[in-house]
């Protein structure tokens, strides 16, 4: 290769229904590195894009939940495999975002996928159960996915943060619409490219880039979103988000504030926080 070869730059697009559209609005916004370089013009999703993403997530949900837990586990493990193969790109993006130790961030993000992937076929055993009711009935409780979950990714920890919110949500069979970190969206964009090539079915994860304050209230008020992870919602926006979430009694979850690299940052209770416990009764008789 000659030294004067011109680099091919990537267009950072939305990820909706397994495809990579630009915003239907034609809008984009500038994303800069921590040291001020222009990194990219990133799609600025509109309300219509958000609705499209919710529709894609809703359509994909029964199929994703209907896969066997073993199969979901293998698919999510494969996400880790493919991230490992693209780690140079993720490290570069984390460095651009100002991470002090990009390698550590990528390691932790990949390991988090592996950890959660293994929960797919265990969470029901550990956190469901049978109940000894006082009567001739067999009674059991199983956790089930709640449906479509909106995720507001943490603004910092632009890779580990989004993986730590996303993995526990989809482990159980939920599908999602993720609002990426506004100031450092590129790791989430790259993650969507990994997801697109890793057997995660189209629509299971949809990633929107854009302005947090614009997108989040639309997400919180959407009547076909069952739950919202507000870990990345700015404090002064939380009240409005929770008020909007009341419209269809959304589940609102916020991850505990812990060091994202610590063991406490991953938990099966993060999985069940966005699941429903279903209890089934049946008589016992000859």
């Amino acid at each position, binding site marked *: 290769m000659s030294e004067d070869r011109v680099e091919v730059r990537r267009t950072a697009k939305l990820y909706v229904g397994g495809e990579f559209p630009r915003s239907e609005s034609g809008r984009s916004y500038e994303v800069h590195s921590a040291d001020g370089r222009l990194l990219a013009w990133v799609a600025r999703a509109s309300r219509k894009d958000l609705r499209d993403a919710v529709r894609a997530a809703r359509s994909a949900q029964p199929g994703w939940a209907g896969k066997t837990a073993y199969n979901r586990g293998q698919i999510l493990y494969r996400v880790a495999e493919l991230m490992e193969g693209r780690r140079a790109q993720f490290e570069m993006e984390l460095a651009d975002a100002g991470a002090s130790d990009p390698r550590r961030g990528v390691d932790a993000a990949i390991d988090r996928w592996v950890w959660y992937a293994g929960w797919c076929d265990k969470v029901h055993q550990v956190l469901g159960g049978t*109940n000894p009711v006082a009567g001739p009935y067999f*009674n059991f409780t199983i956790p089930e996915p709640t449906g479509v979950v909106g995720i507001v990714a943490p603004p910092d920890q632009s890779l580990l943060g989004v993986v730590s919110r996303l993995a526990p949500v989809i482990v159980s069979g939920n599908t999602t619409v993720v609002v990426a970190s506004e100031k450092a969206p590129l790791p989430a964009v790259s993650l969507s490219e990994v997801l697109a090539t890793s057997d995660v079915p189209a629509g299971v994860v949809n990633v929107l880039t854009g302005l947090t304050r614009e997108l989040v209230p639309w997400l919180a008020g959407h009547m076909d979103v*069952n739950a919202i992870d507000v870990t990345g919602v700015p404090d002064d926006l939380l009240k409005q*988000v*929770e*008020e909007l979430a009341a419209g269809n*009694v959304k589940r609102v979850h916020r991850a505990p504030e812990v060091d994202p690299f610590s063991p406490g940052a991953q938990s099966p209770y993060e999985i069940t926080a966005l699941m429903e416990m279903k*209890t089934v009764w049946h008589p016992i008789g000859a």
Partner: protein
Amino acid sequence: MGDATDIEKRETGTPEETPPWEYAPAPESTEVVHLRDRYDLFVGGRFVEPKSGRYFTTINPATEEPLAEVAEAGEEDVNLAVRAAREAFEERWRDLRGKERAKFIYRIARALQERSREFAVLETMNNGKPIKESRDVDVPLAAAHFFYYAGWADKLEYAFPGRTPRPLGVAAQITPWNFPLLMCAWKLAPALAAGNTVVLKPASTTPLTALLLAEVIEQAELPPGVVNVIPGPGGKTGEWLARHPDVAKIAFTGSTEIGKVLRRSVAGTGKRLTLELGGKAANIVFEDAPLDQAIEGIVNGIFFNQGEVCCAGSRLFVQESVFELLLDKLKARLDTLRVGDPLDKNTDVGAINSRDQLEKITELVQSGIEEGAEIYQPDCVLPERGFWFRPTLFTNVSQSHRIAREEIFGPVLSILTFRTPEEAVEKANNTPYGLSAGIWTDKGSRILWMAERMKAGVVWANTFNRFDPSSPFGGYKESGFGREGGRHGLQPYLHLDGGAA
């Protein structure tokens, strides 16, 4: 539709083949209940007059006679109750060893068992529900809930693997009028076992058994302030309580409408919240179901507690091939239901809890007639005083009718049909609610297939309206979030700190 707008004038059914069974009156004695003229607030371990200075009258909905005057908690009373609960939490309850907390809760369970008849009769007098239900369901289950959760108090570290549970603080609990005592038990038992203290606001039409429970708690010598009971209207007392800054957790059972109001009012405060809201449950009968058993399940599903049940099976879906047969059987069964004096031990359907609720039911039933559904009501004689509504069936119901979409919270069943299991799933889930569902079929694989697809927190297969303290209960979608009952019912009352390494 014609001019048939007056429900009372509608054609009513007549038992055709068998003459109605004659029942002699079998009234339960009220001697066991010693009503006071006046009930005060229970705050800080004793009964105190309300700072508000206000009392309201609580009545027997079956007679409209006043039963007692009950203190109404004003804003200052709410503040005092929360302060008492906060102090009790910090100074005593939080640090009391689990095994000692357990013993206090066991005492409550035992006292409920010992005074069970008194509680049952008082519940029936204040709520209007049949004595056989308060006696056989509400009170024994309430005692069982305390007994079950008492045993968790010293075993919390086993409930949540890998976590170190901690209580939250003061729990505000707002209970409904349909199962007044039982809902107090569902709320208090896990909260206390987890080490929280409580301010409980019972429903304003049915405060008496909650206040009798307060007396039991006083006699059980729980540390003062661990449980406080402050009756009052939801829109005022409940709202003040939920908004109080020292409240860490709110547990509410009631309508979806009020649940949303409550959700908005605590938005952004970081308070923990669980909501157990309305329902519009599908009860689905397949052609291979044991029909006579299913009839009993349908009747239990919608007429238990006059249908004033959030998980009532208010939408019946019948496979087309057995629709006519099932409808005939159901009508015949309806004709045998005994509606009337709730204190009579033979009564199946008692009084509606309040005039407001009766008006709401009447209005929705009227809408069913106006929208073109076909009504059937048995020809039963209703008492002259009190609030009554005949057991009611609607056929020719479309999914868009209000009676198929809105929670009626009364003895009114909307009947629809389906052809295939897929269609049953589609129609059953076609509601913003998701509390419960019923499935009737002899085919095991179909039960599990259907159960998997129901968007509902509780699925009863070949049974309906079963409850147990070890069995989690709560909704999907707009029926609320969080579970009450079982191991899962502890979680809303605990911080789960720390992770496994």
